[in-house]
């Protein structure tokens, strides 16, 4: 019988590894995708990975400051998505395309 404690006893480590996995998936999206909007979505994934870490630590250490930070991160992420999408709209008007291949010559 193999040791199944890793499967049955969910602790802080599980949440940390899950958030690391989500963060790395988001980073892969930022590096590998060429569509500007999908890159913004991958940034949201990375922020969510960090949020899981904050909430896990806050819950396991019994301190509320982590949840305050998550609250701030959520707001900043919403603001960042709004500005990023407005930039994408402005760029799409000019180039008729949101592939970042076309943004190499942004300097007028």
């Amino acid at each position, binding site marked *: 019988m193999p040791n199944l404690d890793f*499967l049955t006893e*969910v*602790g*802080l*480590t*599980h949440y940390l*590894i*899950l958030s*690391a*996995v*989500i*963060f*790395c*998936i*988001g980073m*892969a*999206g930022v*590096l*590998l*995708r*060429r*569509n500007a*909007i*999908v890159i*913004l*979505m991958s940034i*949201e*994934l990375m922020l*969510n990975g960090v*949020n*899981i870490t904050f*909430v*896990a630590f*806050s*819950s*396991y*250490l*019994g301190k*509320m400051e982590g*949840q*305050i930070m*998550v*609250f701030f991160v*959520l*707001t900043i*992420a*919403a603001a960042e*998505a*709004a*500005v990023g*999408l*407005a*930039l994408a*709209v*402005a760029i*799409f*008007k*000019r180039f008729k395309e*949101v592939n970042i291949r076309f943004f190499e010559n942004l*300097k007028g």
Partner: protein
Amino acid sequence: MSTDAILFWILAFMTVSSALTVVLITNPIYCALSLALTMVGVSALFVTLNAYFLAGVQMIVYAGAVLVLFVMVLMLFDLKHELQAFTRGKMTGALKLASIGLLAGLIAGAILMSNGILLTKSEAFTSPDMASDTTKQLGHLIFSQYLFGFEALGVLLMVVAVGAVALSRSKGGTHAKS
């Protein structure tokens, strides 16, 4: 196997698989929809960590507001399948994948090395009165100790709301023809 563990594994599988879908699917609309599924999964994970207020805020802000924004912009662009969804060049792609793997290995190694340190403190948690009361504590902290940050966030949201409208109405900025 306790219900907590089963719930965690189901949520973790759902979150990770939908996050992978965001990165791997070429149609941006499906990316946005699976991002919504990821947000719902993360919000459910917050519930398992007794952060009920944040779970609600996550659902409202992300699954409600940000995702609608993404889908609206995608509908505006009318993008079908991307011709070149992924990065070009096998060499640079392999380099990027290698750097991601390196980061993942570093993080996993750091977490596993710190296993003994982290788990010693975890018994302090889940006294039921503390668990049910997190929303009240959060409110007290926000409106006493972190009041300045909270107000600054309000100002930031105001500036961003105006700036986003101004940006999307601009006629191409430095690229303007006339």
